[in-house]
């Protein structure tokens, strides 16, 4: 008997629908947990965890906590696991776990310790909760589940709530400070400065010939050539007026070697 069922049973009679839902989803939740550990691919691992979290969300709803159940699905599954997945996807598809053990026997030890810990927690909770009946659910949900949580959050636990939010904001700001490279003013060139630098003395502002172009000049006087080296017409636009060079202009300038 698992702890969840103990609590359920202690709360009074378990309705059929509740029991059916539980016995369908509880194995799925366990399967997800085991699958998360067993999966070699990191993304598969995350997906198994999503399954477990979804089942937990439904369990919350089953146990008369609809708000926390929905928040579990929206926040944990919808946002936090999604960010995990985001990072895992960037890691790459083929980064599966290697199966070489660095510590001899660690897997056996981990399984044994995990099972032992689960047994300890399970028996401990079972012994502690055996025979106790849960009370106060109706009183807590008297004015509605959401209203009850809101009242507690903003009256009795307002300080804890605010401190938690301050902690989270500090963590977020800290991550940004660590990851964000702040450029000083002037370190990054603005568009105007880039243009000035481009036309400054010593810099040729025009485009350089593209790769694969072997012409020594971009002048229209240089004849166009096909890839095999033969001369070609049709490299100049038809609308340009034809030039008629005088014989002296057409003669070699003496610049060729």
């Amino acid at each position, binding site marked *: 008997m698992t702890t969840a069922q103990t609590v359920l049973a202690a709360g009074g009679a378990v309705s059929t629908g509740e029991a059916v839902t539980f016995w369908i989803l509880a194995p799925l939740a366990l399967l997800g947990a085991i699958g998360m550990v067993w999966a070699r691919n990191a*993304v598969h691992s995350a997906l198994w965890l999503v399954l477990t979290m979804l089942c937990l969300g439904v369990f919350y709803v089953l146990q008369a906590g609809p708000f926390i159940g*929905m928040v579990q*699905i*929206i926040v944990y599954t919808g*946002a936090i696991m*999604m960010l995990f997945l985001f990072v895992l996807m960037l890691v790459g*598809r083929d980064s599966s776990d290697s199966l070489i053990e660095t510590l001899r026997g660690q897997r056996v030890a981990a399984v044994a310790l995990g099972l032992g810990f689960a047994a300890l927690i399970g028996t401990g909770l079972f012994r502690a909760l055996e025979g106790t009946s849960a009370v106060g659910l109706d009183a807590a949900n008297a004015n509605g*589940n959401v209203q009850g949580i809101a009242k507690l959050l903003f009256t009795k636990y307002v300080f804890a709530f605010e401190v938690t939010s301050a902690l989270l904001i500090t963590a977020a700001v800290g991550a940004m400070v660590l990851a964000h490279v702040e450029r000083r003013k002037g370190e990054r060139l603005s568009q105007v400065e880039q243009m000035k630098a481009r036309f400054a*003395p010593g810099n040729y502002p025009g485009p350089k010939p593209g790769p694969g172009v072997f012409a020594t000049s971009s002048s229209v006087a240089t004849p166009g050539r096909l890839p095999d080296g033969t001369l070609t017409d049709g490299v100049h636009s038809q609308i340009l007026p034809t030039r008629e060079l005088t014989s002296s202009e057409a003669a070699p300038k003496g610049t060729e070697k």
Partner: protein
Amino acid sequence: MTFLAQSPTLQDFGHDVWWLVLLKVVGVFAMLLLLTLFTINYERKVVARMAQRPGPNQVGPNGWLQSLTDGLKLPFKEEIIPLTADKVVYFLAPVISAVCAFTAFSVIPFGPMVSIFGERTPLQLTDTSVAVLLVLACGGMAIYGIVLAGWASGSTYPLLGGLRSSAQMISYEVAMGLSFVAVFMTAGTMSTSEIVRAQANGNPVNLLGLEFTAPGWYAVLLLPSFIIYAISAVGETNRAPFDLPEAESELVGGFHTEYSSFKFAMFFLAEYINMITVSAVCTTLFLGGWRAPWPISAINDGMFNQGWWPMLWFFAKVLVLLFGFIWLRATLPRLRYDQFMRFGWKVLIPVNLVWILALAGIKTLQNKATDDGTRYTIIGALILAVLLITLLWPSRTPAPAPNLEEQLARRPKGSYPVPPLDLQVPPSPRTRRDVAERQPAMAGGGAATDETGPANSDEKEV
């Protein structure tokens, strides 16, 4: 009010017999499929009209069966699965998308209490005290469909599309969730049927001794929330101008580039159902739900708010909102990705938070047993403070921009030469035949006159 008795409350749910539940589930499912088929045609026809084309007009009466034939054809096309695909996840992704899209519709109210085969039941599949959160949860899970599709395809474009969409949808879900907060605060509930109920009547307002009835629709009452919801809904459904996860010009097809046949059909279906869902949620939360708009609702003591009539108003409102989606697609170009994210995080969310704060302040002023004197003092003090801040805010006087001559004079010696401002380009002496008859061109456009010769250009050169 007689018709208020027809309005379902949370207590009316959960008592249906099994065949009625089955009937409602099948009904919602069939309705979504039909509405999707309709919306595809609707979109194509509207976009076509906006582009001065007839649109699909061959299959069926006026081409209205075009999407049905397309839909029938799609599953029979060849299924291509990339070699590098992660088979299980590749198969799972479209299923997640479609399932989430269908599930979200289970809490949308279509109408009041009706009688189906003698059973009195609300015209809504189900409702819970956190129904709107269920819609948000389905939206959150739907991201998995897109992200996993992008990852499992084992190809670059889908991966980029998947990453884009996860960042985009998470960001816009925050804005969307915040825009719901104002509705929850005003309605005092998160159940969809009760939010519709809360918008039934305008609430009387006493402003400066003037009695009038404020409209009940939250689109009017909570206009900033409505606008923010409308914008973030477009971002959440990946529709133009926010369709960056499937930007054709950058990513081919985005997350569904490698999908074909039935799996692609499921993504297509999910996209259109999502569009219908956000329109239906908008109708429910902001536009009074299934209730008739004002002049009609007053006819014959609310006759049109009873029985099966409300389905008509509901679908009319949804279709108007869908038209808005299509209109946006036909009109606006796609945003750049960084502009889009900046808009979400730096505009929508802060504006929303400030609005919620202001709304909470207004609620407090209304709730407390404050007399009118104190109330108006507080409001006056606030207005005065805002005025003072705007008046006394130090303004930055920008340094006067240097004119063109000064800028040119500042250039260091040996700079790249620029042509003089009054440059005239003389015809080349080497082009005799064609150009000699032309007017010489001049910088600035106009034709040169004879008084200013080409000799001028040498003096002004810098």
